[in-house]
């Protein structure tokens, strides 16, 4: 007497067969060896190769941008905590060299907590816009902003200019770069602390100064930013394992198997193909430095961030923008600001960051909403509706779990140290 009902073995065998076929196809898809690169894929890989990076773009607004003395001064200023109101915060507090000039926090923390994630500075000299929302249009105008931000360094321009003039080392360098230092010794004209739109007593002191004296201070304050920018322009990425691999692919020779694993190669194929990453993360820095709404949720407890739609108005109104009186540029050289766009597409749009700075810079996105690269890739795979504005990625990518992993593995191959001599990556001790 058979204790199993009729057909039982047939069902078991059928089920086992289905499982075997599904598992087999899965394994085949996930582990089959990569196919050779097509011509168009090779062209795309070439476009991402760091060897394709154009020369550092000029900064017409900053005549000291490529002055080595200015970089030396900027280097010291970048690490100098005396620039802050409490003497404890420098640019390097948030932009830490060992974390690719970022801080590893969700949102920046200095004197207070900022509203967004600290972006890396590496390679930013190539970006026409600074900050997630592009509210500044040069490295030098950006560098001025945290100095006076109450949540960052909380200082005032009068204090900073005085510090530079009274420090013999700074004073000497400043004169070599910018000519002469302003005479601010008359305390009745130049108070101890002053700056516009800051705490009431500093603001009042600023408003009471003569217009010509305010211009004098603004010019020297601007030069502080220009020196810091000259230093920041030196912070560029070095070739990664991907670039080594790309060199072989571009030359049409087979890359040694030791350079890239199967998964990395497949991740790269997804990156240049159906994962559509290159729509925004294109060029040798893996970024178009443009603004996109990607439907990322706001930080828990925060209202949705309006992003570029506010940033564009702020940069146009900035006294220190490319077209302003403290810029060294001719109006015809300020093309980005002159031809900047408006419009609803900018609602909740944030600047695409370079993917060459992923290592050690988690959490990711403009408010550090996502803790891991896997979460970021999963976000783009799902393409959720935007809370405000419109998610440019209109539909889910539909990538399979092993493909998401392959993308992640590939992105990790972009890790490489900053291409600057070691002494630039630490605080100078020559003051």
């Amino acid at each position: 007497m058979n204790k199993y009902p009729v057909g039982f073995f047939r069902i078991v065998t059928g089920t086992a067969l289905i499982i075997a076929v599904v598992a087999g196809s899965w394994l085949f898809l996930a582990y089959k060896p990569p196919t050779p690169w097509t011509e168009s894929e090779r062209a795309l890989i070439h476009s991402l190769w760091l060897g394709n990076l154009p020369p550092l773009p000029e900064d017409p607004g900053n005549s000291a941008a490529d002055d080595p003395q200015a970089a030396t001064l900027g280097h010291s200023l970048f690490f100098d905590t005396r620039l802050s109101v409490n003497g404890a915060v420098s640019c390097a507090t948030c932009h830490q060299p060992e974390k690719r000039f970022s801080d590893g926090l969700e949102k920046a923390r200095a004197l207070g907590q900022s509203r967004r994630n600290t972006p890396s500075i590496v390679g930013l000299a190539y970006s026409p816009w600074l900050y997630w929302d592009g509210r500044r249009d040069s490295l030098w105008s950006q560098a001025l902003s945290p100095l006076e931000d109450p949540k960052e360094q909380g200082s005032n321009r009068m204090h900073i200019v005085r510090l530079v003039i009274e420090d013999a080392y700074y004073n000497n360098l400043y004169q070599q770069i910018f000519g002469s230092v302003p005479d601010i010794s008359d305390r009745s004209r130049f108070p101890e602390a002053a700056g516009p739109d800051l705490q009431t007593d500093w603001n009042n002191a600023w408003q009471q100064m003569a217009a010509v004296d305010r211009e004098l201070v603004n010019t020297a304050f601007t030069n502080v930013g220009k020196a810091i920018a000259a230093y920041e322009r030196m912070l560029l990425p070095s070739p990664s394992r991907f670039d080594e691999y790309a060199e072989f692919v571009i030359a049409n020779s087979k890359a040694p198997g030791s350079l890239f694993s199967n998964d990395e190669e497949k991740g790269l194929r997804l990156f240049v193909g159906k994962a559509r990453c290159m729509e925004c993360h294109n060029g040798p820095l893996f970024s178009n430095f443009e603004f996109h709404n990607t439907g990322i949720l706001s930080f828990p407890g925060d209202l949705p961030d309006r992003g570029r739609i506010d940033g564009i108005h702020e940069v146009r109104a900035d006294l220190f923008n490319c077209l302003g009186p403290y810029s060294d540029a001719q109006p015809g050289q300020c093309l980005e600001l002159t031809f900047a766009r408006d419009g609803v597409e900018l609602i909740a749009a944030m600047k695409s960051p370079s993917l060459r700075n992923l290592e050690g810079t988690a959490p990711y996105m403009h408010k550090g909403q996502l803790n891991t690269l896997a979460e970021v890739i999963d976000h783009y795979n799902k393409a959720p509706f935007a809370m405000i504005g419109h998610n440019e990625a209109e539909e889910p990518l539909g990538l399979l779990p092993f493909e998401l992993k392959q993308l992640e593995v590939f992105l990790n191959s972009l890790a490489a140290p900053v291409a600057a001599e070691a002494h630039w990556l630490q605080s100078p001790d020559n003051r």
Partner: protein
Amino acid sequence: MLKKKVLVAMLMVFSMLMLEAQAQQEVGQTWVSKNEHFKVMVESELDPIVINQMHSWTLQLQNAQGQAVTDADLSLVGGMPAHNHGLATAPVIEPAGVGSYLLQGLRFHMMGYWELELTIDHAGISDIVLITLEL
């Protein structure tokens, strides 16, 4: 006999394809407006056009009879239909001589298919030129 016919047919198809390819290449330089009121010759400062680089174009405008059109009002909008977004910049067009115009402030920020609509207004006639690009 049949082989000969097939060969002739194949040659005809081939030459038609060649002619079409040539025509497309010409259209790459000169664009005709929808209602054929205007012709625009486009010359880019960047050749080939690459992404992420601000640049300008020179436009030569002619009427249907091939005469230069000088005092037209020109404006340009554009974007990527596949991605439902516009240009990364707001380009401006200014007159630059007889029948000539300078289009400044173009920067394409993605690879792929772009469409630009150039609106031309002149002497009471309005027409649109559709310029397409594959970057």
